């Protein structure tokens, strides 16, 4: 059973979104997603300053098994990226919800966060996807 912390929200493309005190959000991929992909070998992070629409592909996580796009969960501007993943892509596998964060962004419209799933909804979503 994969880990789904309740302190954050989730997208239908398996990103997790955590709201920070300063209004920015931190984004990574869920434990379920990293487990499906297997051992990561490369992570391509977005550029700081990049402006994105919600659901736009902005990063790539690549494992031996497959390469997978990571999508902006909400519209906004990239404010920070996790450079450490360049040398240690396996951090995404080892700590998907913590040190494995991929980027931070300043949302353009905070209400877009309401369209994301909470932990319970994401759990049901995963169960339904499995069939």
């Amino acid at each position: 059973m994969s880990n789904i912390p309740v302190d954050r929200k989730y997208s239908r493309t398996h990103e997790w979104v955590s709201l920070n005190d300063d209004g920015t959000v931190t984004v990574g991929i869920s434990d379920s997603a990293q487990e499906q992909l297997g051992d990561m070998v490369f992570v391509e992070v977005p550029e700081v300053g990049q402006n994105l629409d919600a659901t736009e592909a902005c990063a790539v996580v690549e494992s031996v098994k497959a390469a997978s796009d990571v999508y902006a969960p909400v519209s906004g501007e990239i404010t920070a990226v996790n450079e450490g993943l360049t040398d240690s892509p396996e951090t995404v596998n080892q700590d998907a919800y913590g040190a494995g964060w991929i980027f931070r962004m300043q949302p353009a419209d905070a209400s877009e966060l309401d369209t994301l799933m909470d932990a319970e909804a994401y759990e049901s979503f995963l169960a339904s996807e499995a069939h």
Partner: protein
Amino acid sequence: MGSMTPLYEEHLAAGGKLVDFAGWDMPIHYGSQIEEHHTVRNAAGMFDVSHMTVVDLSGDRVRDYLRYLLANDVSRLESSGKALYSCMLNESGGIIDDLIVYYIKNDFFRMVVNAGTRARDLAWLEQQAAAYAVTVTERPDLAMVAIQGPAARDRVLEVLAAGARSVAGSLRPFFGAFAGDWFIARTGYTGEDGFEIILPNEAVVAFWQQLRTAGVRPVGLGARDTLRLEAGMNLYGSDMDESFTPLESALGWTVAWEPPERDFIGRSALEKQRHEGVRDKLVGLLLEGKGVLRNHQKVVVGDDGQGEITSGSFSPTLQRAIGFARVPQQTGATCEVEIRGKLLPARVVKPPFVRNGAAQIEL
């Protein structure tokens, strides 16, 4: 639910993630494919390869049979226990399978063929056996474990009973021998030293457990693939199939042209191809930058040449993407690979990429 080897429960107990492989439920990894790969390069890992097909061949004319059946020549096997890697061809020179055959006695050879080609291989072996009065006996009563890595021999020798230990300890590379009804061979598919042991189904669980207790790590099919690719070894079904000859698959070295009087199935087709010029070749590729090579990616050669990745992956030992590709014969030192819409530069290299843990190519 596919077929299960006798080690099925052991795989579950070790945390194996089971997937379908040629109709068998096999572990792709036990938690980390990359860590399992490193364990084989640095210590000792073991693979359940019981899904492979063991066939015993017997009869007074079995040597003649094999000299006709196989593109390589069993006459090269002068000492009992010596192994030969060979392709088995159809009349057009296409590869039905690649296999290892062990010379045991003049009227008894043992062959190991791939799991995916079992039915095709057995039918072909039977069909060809009639003219030589050879008996073809599949051995589904036998399981097989491969233990590989710089520490593999030591671990196996610690675990084996005295008689088997003595047999195994004196094996030279690429030789096998019987210890009771166990067959121990110093062969492998990883580029490391070690053994492949064929033993009765009833004995394999205990043996696997003893090896685990001795510190040998279970390793899945995912790491098996990255290990054999680094070692420059072909995978049937990816790097070649029945529509390709050994000359197009970097396996020309396994074809024994001498003596010219030895006819073998596919010989005339191969000679014709050799005479006319082989259109494509199988080469090793190293991706210059970041990324992972994957099967079927398009390879662009010069202005108008095109090829395809046959086996692509990421080399955990080299930390670079490597692969095999079938490309036009005239391909030189470089080419490009189309990855997610971009043409990325790659270098043509001669495998193996890694041997005994060390890089064999310039990075």
